[in-house]
C-alpha cells in the first residue's frame, strides 16, 4: 500500500511538472537584458521601466538580470545563460569589455542580435554587435558642458569627480578641460555630503577665480548645491551636472543650477526591446547607433521633466 501511494505521488509530481513545463514552452519571442547594475539603482530603475513598458506593448517575454555585486565574471555568466536559453535578442551594458568579450563573442557567434546600452559604444564594431543605444562619450559631454559654462560667462571651472579613477568620469573632466582651453581643474570629492562640502569649500576659497562647477552625477550635484547654499555663496557660481533627479530639478527651477545633461535612459531600455522584437519578426534593424543624450535640461524644461519623473521615466 505504502509503495503504491508513493508511486501515485511520484506520478502526480511528474504530471504537474509536465503541465508547468509545457506552459513555459509557449511560442513567445524571448529577449534577455543583462546589465552591470541592479534595477534598484535609481538610474537603472528607469532603464528597467523602459524595458517593462516595451515588453508589455510588444508582447514579448523579457528577462532583466544583473549580478548581485558589480562583478564582471558573474555578469558574463548571465550572458552565457541567455545564450543557452537561445533568446532571440540580447541587450547588454558593457562597462568592462575585456571581461565580457568572450561571452559576447559567443552570443554573436550563436547568431543572437546584441544591442549595447549605456556603455560599450566602442565595442559595437569590434564584436559585431548590432548597435549602441546610449549617450555620446563622456569626453564629448565634457566639451559640451564647457561650451555652456563659457556662454554663461565662466572663465575658469572645476570638474568635481566623485569617482576618482573611474575612467569614464576622468574622460568627462578631460573634455571639460579641453573645451575650456585648459582652464579647468579637477577636484576629487565623494558621495558623502560632509566630505563634499568641506573639500568644495576649501577649494573654492583657495581659488577665487573659479566660478564654474561641473558635477558628474545627480547626487554629488545636490551635495555641492546644498554646501554652497549653506554658505550663502551659491549665487556666485554657475553649476552644471550629469543626470536628473528631484533635487536637481528643483535646483534648476531656483536657478541655482544652470543645466543638467539628461541621459534619457528610459529610451535605453525601451528602444532595444522594440528593435529586437521587430528584428525577430521581420528581420528589421536600424543600421547606426542611437544617441539618447546628453539632452540639456534647463529651468524651462523643469515641469515637463518633473511629470515624467513621477511616472518613473526619469
Amino acid at each position, binding site marked *: 500500500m505504502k509503495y503504491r501511494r508513493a508511486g501515485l505521488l511520484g506520478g502526480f509530481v511528474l504530471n504537474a511538472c509536465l503541465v508547468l513545463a509545457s506552459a*513555459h514552452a509557449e511560442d513567445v519571442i524571448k529577449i534577455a537584458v543583462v546589465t552591470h547594475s541592479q534595477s534598484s539603482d535609481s538610474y537603472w530603475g528607469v532603464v528597467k521601466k523602459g524595458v517593462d513598458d516595451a515588453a508589455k506593448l510588444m508582447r514579448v517575454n523579457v528577462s532583466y538580470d544583473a549580478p548581485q555585486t558589480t562583478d*564582471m565574471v558573474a555578469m558574463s555568466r548571465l550572458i552565457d*545563460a541567455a545564450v543557452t536559453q537561445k533568446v532571440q535578442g540580447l541587450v547588454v551594458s558593457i562597462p568592462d569589455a575585456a571581461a565580457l568579450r568572450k561571452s559576447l563573442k559567443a552570443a554573436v557567434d550563436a547568431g543572437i542580435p546584441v544591442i549595447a546600452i549605456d556603455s560599450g559604444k566602442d565595442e559595437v564594431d569590434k564584436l559585431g554587435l548590432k548597435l549602441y543605444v546610449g549617450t555620446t562619450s563622456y569626453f564629448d559631454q565634457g566639451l559640451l558642458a564647457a561650451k555652456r559654462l563659457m556662454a554663461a560667462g565662466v572663465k575658469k571651472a572645476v570638474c568635481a569627480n566623485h569617482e576618482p579613477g573611474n575612467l569614464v568620469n576622468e574622460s568627462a573632466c578631460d573634455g571639460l578641460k579641453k573645451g575650456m582651453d585648459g582652464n579647468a581643474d579637477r577636484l576629487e570629492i565623494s558621495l558623502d555630503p560632509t566630505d563634499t562640502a568641506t573639500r568644495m569649500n576649501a577649494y573654492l576659497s583657495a581659488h577665487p577665480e573659479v566660478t564654474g562647477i561641473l558635477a558628474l552625477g545627480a547626487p554629488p550635484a545636490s551635495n555641492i548645491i546644498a554646501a554652497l547654499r549653506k554658505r550663502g555663496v551659491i549665487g556666485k557660481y554657475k553649476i552644471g551636472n550629469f543626470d536628473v533627479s528631484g533635487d536637481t530639478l528643483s535646483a534648476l527651477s531656483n536657478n541655482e543650477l544652470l543645466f543638467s545633461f539628461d541621459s534619457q535612459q528610459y529610451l535605453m531600455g525601451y528602444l532595444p526591446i522594440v528593435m529586437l522584437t521587430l528584428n525577430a519578426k521581420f528581420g528589421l534593424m536600424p543600421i547606426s547607433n542611437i544617441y539618447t543624450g546628453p539632452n540639456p535640461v534647463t529651468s524651462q524644461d523643469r515641469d515637463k521633466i518633473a511629470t515624467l519623473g513621477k511616472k518613473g521615466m526619469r
Partner: protein
Amino acid sequence: MGMPNESIETSIAPKGVGSDSARSERLSILAKLLRRPELGALSGVILVYIIFYCLAGSSGMFTLRGMTEILQVSAEIGILATTASLLMIAGEFDLSMGSMIGFAGVIIGLGSTVYHLPLYLAIVLALVICAAIGALNGWLTVRTGVPSFIVTLASMLILRGEAISDTRAINGYTQISNITEGDPDSSAISLFGGNAAQSLFSWMAHHHWIDANQAGDPSVAGIPASILWWVALTAVATWVLMRTRFGNWIFAVGGDKTSAINVGVPVDRVKIVLFMLTAMSAVLFAAIQIMQVGSADTLRGTQKEFDAIIAVVIGGTLLTGGYGSPIGAFLGALIYGTVQMGIVYTRSDADRFKVFLGVMVLLAVLFNNYIRRRATQAR
C-alpha cells in the same frame, strides 16, 4: 599520517563523524549512511533539481551547456567552501576570503602586466603572500583571543582597501586588462582556465552524442578546469579529514578545545594552517577567474565569503564547529550554484531574485536539518 592517533580517537570523541566507532559497526549500511552530515544536503540537491525541473525544464538549463555553466558557478563557490568547511569544523570563520580574491587577483595582474613576471611566478607569489596573510589572521586569532569573526572582518576591509589603492597607484585604474597576453603560451592558462577532455567532447559532438553548433563543434569545449579543481580539492579535504591525524585534530579542536589541548593536540598550529588554506583557496579562485577571463578587477570576489559560508552551512556543517564534512560543502555549493543560475532560467522577475534565493537557502537548510534529525532519531 596513516592511522589515526588512538588516544585522541577515544578520549575526545567528536560530536559527529567518527564517534561511537564500536556501536556503528552494528548498524546497517543504510543507517550509517543516514547519519552522515552530507545526507541532508544530498536530499536538498534532489529537491532543488526537482523544483527547477518543474519551473525551467525546457529552458535550456538542463542542456549540456546549461549544466556546465551551473557547475562552473558551483565550482567557484565550492573551492572556497571546501577549505571554509575545514576551518568551520575547527570552530573558526574566515570573512576575508572574498577580499583575498580581489587582493590575489591584483598581485597576479600587476605581477604579470606591470612587472612582467611569468604567470606561474605571479601565481606562486600571490600564493605565498596570501598564505602569509592567512597565517597572520590565524596567529592574531589564537594569540589575542579575539574571535576570528572580528579579526577576519578587519582583514576583509584592509585587503579590499589595499587592493583598490595599490592598483590605482600603480595602474591608474582599478581594473587590470590583458593579463594573459604577456605570457600567452604559459600552461597556467589551461591549468586554471582551460577545458579538459576537449578531444573527447569534439569526438562526442561529431557522433551527435552531445549538442553541437552549426560548425560541428561541441556546444561545450570540454570540462572547465575549475570543476576538476573543485572535485579534486573536495576529495583531498575529505581524505585529510577522515583518514589522517590532522583530520582528527580538526574535529578535536572544533569539538572541545580544552580536551584537545589536554591530550596534546597543537590547537594553535591547526588553526593557523587552516587559515592559510582558506587564503590559498582564495588565490586558486582568483587564478581560475583571471585565466578564464584574462582580466582582474579589485572588486572581484565581493561577498564570496558569504557564498562560501552559506554553502558550508547548507552542507550540514555546524556553525559551532566540531561537525561537518567537505562533501557536504560540495553539495551545498552545488545547491547554491544551481539556485543562483537556475533562477535566471525560470525567467522570473530579477527584482525577486534575492527573495527566491533566500527562500531556497532556508528551505534547503530546514529540509537538511529535518532529514538529519529523522535519521539520527532513527538509530
